[in-house]
């Protein structure tokens, strides 16, 4: 019976996967990709397909791809995806090959999410088992978080739009997910590779180094104690063991293991040198690496392009007084960095969740956000579907997301195309979107903390129950 159920579930999972792929292909065959590739929600200056094509054209006509302020992506992306922007197959849509690459990237990401999610779930059950809490949590309520997360990622309209809109965010998301997958499966080189590529492509994933490290540190604990990469605090285990009367002190590993960090640092260094050498080779006859850094990272950090997107910074920097500009640039970027430490202290026992929170914060505060970034963190949210089951405001958040994603294009149309609205209406939707993301992050963090509290109270109360 149980097996059959599982079979049905997995069958329906693959059905959904195939349905989402077919849906993407149908959308790709629409003429002109439904003009999605020039939507501000999909293509930011960093992820725009047309800018990639322009960069490739410039490179082909022996000019630096960074000449002019068109292309701001990685030179590697230009060498890999650039040829696909001009290759055409007779009788097929213009950018079929490129779209297929995006679809494949999406599917690969979904599969990696699924594998990681299953990994996490096994660890979760292992934890519960080791804490003797399995009975307390009814199994019928437990969803297969890997499948859920993968399906959320694949069927999310944001992901579909980003994929069909030919932006490069599916590739960037894949790099981030690869990094997390490597971290959770304890594949140090893979994790380092994913981290280096993700950082190279969009800078912000650099802060994922903390959760990745934590997961390695925990992985070593895991080897010794047998609990997973995402688990309740170690203190609980301590208390548990003390209650059991075990002398677990000797078993506990040192809190911080330098070995794994050095291992990771070595691989990260290796990969980054490798990536930089490749970039240097591809930009040899042009401005070199300095130009690349200036027009990729520099462009991200100084918010030069003020074209509207789903974030709030474009309008802010279009309106703010010139002499305050640098101050606010620092303030907004430091806002991301400030939260790293408190979150890491409080959630150090759950590196995957920490990674999710970081990704969500980055996609909220980054200079050129797009719906592709939201697609990533919403997909990762699926991993914690069991832990976050009692999150507050989830209906409100869902309705908010739907409302914003319907209203934002309308406001954009009114402002840009019809000229009847003005910028403030569109900015208001961006504002609401930012608030929704804030609520999601804050509620998510408190729900996770509450979940850990619940587990602890279960542990602490159990012996008392037994005593009484």
């Amino acid at each position, binding site marked *: 019976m149980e097996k059959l159920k599982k079979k049905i579930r997995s069958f329906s999972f693959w059905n959904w996967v195939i349905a989402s792929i077919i849906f993407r292909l149908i959308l790709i065959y629409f003429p002109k990709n439904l003009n999605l590739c020039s939507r501000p929600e999909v293509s930011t200056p960093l992820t725009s397909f047309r800018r990639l094509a*322009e960069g490739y054209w*410039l490179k082909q006509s022996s000019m630096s791809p960074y000449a002019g302020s068109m292309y701001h992506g990685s030179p590697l992306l230009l060498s890999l995806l650039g040829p696909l922007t001009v290759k055409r197959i007779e009788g097929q849509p213009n950018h079929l090959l490129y779209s297929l690459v995006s679809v494949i990237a999406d599917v690969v990401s979904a599969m990696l999410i699924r594998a990681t999610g299953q990994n996490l779930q096994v660890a979760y059950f292992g934890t519960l088992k080791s804490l003797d809490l399995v009975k307390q949590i009814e199994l019928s309520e437990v969803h297969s978080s890997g499948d859920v997360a993968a399906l959320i990622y694949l069927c999310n309209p944001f992901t579909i739009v980003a994929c069909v809109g030919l932006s490069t965010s599916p590739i960037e998301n894949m790099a981030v997910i690869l990094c997390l997958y490597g971290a959770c499966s304890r594949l140090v080189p893979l994790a380092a590779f994913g981290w280096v590529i993700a950082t190279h492509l969009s800078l912000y994933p650099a802060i994922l180094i903390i959760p990745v490290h934590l997961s390695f540190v925990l992985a070593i604990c895991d080897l010794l104690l047998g609990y997973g990469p995402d688990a309740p605090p170690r203190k609980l285990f301590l208390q548990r063991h003390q209650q059991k009367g075990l002398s677990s002190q000797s078993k506990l590993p040192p809190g911080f293991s330098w070995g794994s960090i050095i291992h990771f640092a070595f691989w990260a260094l290796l990969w980054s040198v490798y990536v930089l050498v490749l970039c240097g080779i591809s930009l040899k006859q042009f401005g070199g690496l300095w130009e690349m850094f200036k027009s990729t990272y520099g462009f991200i950090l100084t918010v030069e392009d003020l074209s509207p997107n789903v974030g709030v910074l474009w309008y*802010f920097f279009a309106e703010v007084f010139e002499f305050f500009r640098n101050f606010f640039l620092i303030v907004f970027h430091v806002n991301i960095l400030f939260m790293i430490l408190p979150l890491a202290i409080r959630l150090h026992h759950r590196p995957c969740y920490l990674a999710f929170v970081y990704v969500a914060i980055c996609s909220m505060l980054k200079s050129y956000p797009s719906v592709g970034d939201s697609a990533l963190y919403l997909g990762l949210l699926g991993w914690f579907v069991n832990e976050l089951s009692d999150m507050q405001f989830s209906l409100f958040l869902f309705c908010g997301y739907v409302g914003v994603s319907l209203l934002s294009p309308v406001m954009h149309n009114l402002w840009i195309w019809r000229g009847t609205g003005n910028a403030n209406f569109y900015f208001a939707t961006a504002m609401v979107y930012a608030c929704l993301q804030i609520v999601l992050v804050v509620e998510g963090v408190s729900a996770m903390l509450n979940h850990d509290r619940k587990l602890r109270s279960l542990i602490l109360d159990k012996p008392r129950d037994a005593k009484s």
Partner: protein
Amino acid sequence: MAFLRRPLLLLLLVTHQFLQLWIASGSVNEEGQKQEEFYEELLLKPLPDRKVLTHFHFQSSAPPSTSNGRHHHLFPKAISQLVQKFRVKEMELSFTQGRWNYESWGGFDSIPSSNAKPPGVELWAVFDVPQHLIDALWKNLTHTLSGLFCASINFLESSTSYSAPEWSFPPALGNLRYGTLPREAVCTENLTPWMKLLPCRDKAGISMLLDRPSIYRGFYHSQRLHLTSTGFSSEGMDLGIILEQTLTVVLQPNIQRASLARTSEKHIQPSWSLSSIFGKEVNGKCVLAETSNVYLLLDRSLVAELKQLHKENEKSAEIVLTSENFWTNSNFELSAKPDRIFIEESSLLSKNSSILYKFEIEKYSEFKPFDLGLTWKIPVGWMCQQAPLHASRFLMGSGNERGAIAISLISTQPSEGSMGANFDGERCELRVDVFQVVPWYVKVYFHSLQVFVDQQPKAVSDIIGTIHVSPSKDKVSPGVMELALKLPCNVSSAALTIEFDKGFLHIDEYPPDANQGFDIPSAIVSFPNFHASMVFLENDYLNKSPLLSKFQEKSPVMSYTEVLLVPLTTPDFSMPYNVITITCTVFALYFGSLLNALRRRVAEEERFLKEKAAKKTGRIPLLLSKLSAKLRGRRPEPPHPPPGSSSLVNSKLVLKVVLVAGLAVCWQYYIS
């Protein structure tokens, strides 16, 4: 005041004898070096659409010399100083209002190809300095010219508004900078300083005709200043400079009511005279001028048409037009007797030749003013010669997000498409150069360039021979596109389209009337294989006249396209405070609520902490717990305060204050 009086004084002083004396002294000097010279000329030309083209041409030249030093007889000192200071090799500045109508006013002659200019201000300059110094000199030059001509040429100083074309701009010589201000309003305040450069101002000679109201009533007027210096020598020798000032005005003569009344004469070209179009007459020449001539040019096709008409009536049309009494022939009548007649050498391109009548102003005086009039007797219709392709440019797309620029080239000669083109083996090719500057906020996607020939899309590499692109950099430099198209000779239409995204600017970068839109400067379409030149018979005389020798020069045919107006999206200009406060509120919400969620502890955790604090007797954990309790807004229960702790706290507090103050002092010192 003294400055103003000088020309009057000069006029009073200069008598006929003085002039002779002066000329004699000039001839004495001649063996050593040439004298400074000034020529004034006026060209009149009837246009097919009942308008008259008047083209004033003034030329001052200062030969290279050592003796003059910083002083000049005739040459404007401001210009020579400018050339010397900025080491200008060649420069052209034009102020234009209105658009040259290439279809009806012609596009092939040397007047339209060198004097038809884009609306607003156009400035280009070639410098005689190494590459890295050019930009600085250009900036200074724009400021100087801005002051000299009372125009906002200084806006060309910013690197976003000028460009350095490599080869497609015809006077391409390297070291060239090119900039335009399409929206500059041109008025009399720009004409007056321009006029001040003339030795006689508008007090005598042909320039007396320059009556402001009539000029600015015209359909098109373009004042141009072109200067060429003859290179810099290493010694202290002065430069030879040739300053050429032209004013091209297209006017509509006042149509007399009487002729209008009769419907049969509606098709007759309007009759005009200098006094009717300018309201003034010429009272003799400017005495400082070497030559002072007025020309009347009859276009090739007009002459052909007249001949045709004559053939119907009489036998020998050629003789009638050039014979002694031609000026009162059956077609038209001239009110003054021309002194000479020139006939253009019939060229390969067309069998017809234009006719030029010359009038010498020298013969006229205050008592016998010169007033040339042209009275048509029969209706005549003709077409001016066109450039091989008529270029026009327009915008495609709607909305404020993206669009496309299209340049369309339509052949003007449907039958003889092969004329003058370059025969390249078997394929006949027509070369067209396109030079286009786009401001940075129009973000052009060069990969989206598409070429259509005869409405059929063609591969870009087949049509475009050479392409030079310098993409725009945000807030730094404009985008420049130079294309050399190789079109088949029998092309009837060609089109180029290129897509762009509209940029979004900071609120300070919008001009005062932001919703009016932004201008994309004219594109220049030139035909390097076609040359506009008029070669007249009797060359010996013509060399003396700068205007006519200008006509004989081979200048490539070029035309300017329309200026495009691109509306850009505007943010709400009244919102900066609201946006700043609202955005900061959202950020504060994020920061505060997330930190609050992380900091919140429930009862048992607190108890655990307290137990921990109770266990440890150290001072620092105690203080920490105290601090945390304070942060939580509860009264800390003092377990057993050790004596003297308060003084310790105080000393610590003092230490902290001192530390902060020290930091502040350091910071202040560092900043200053």
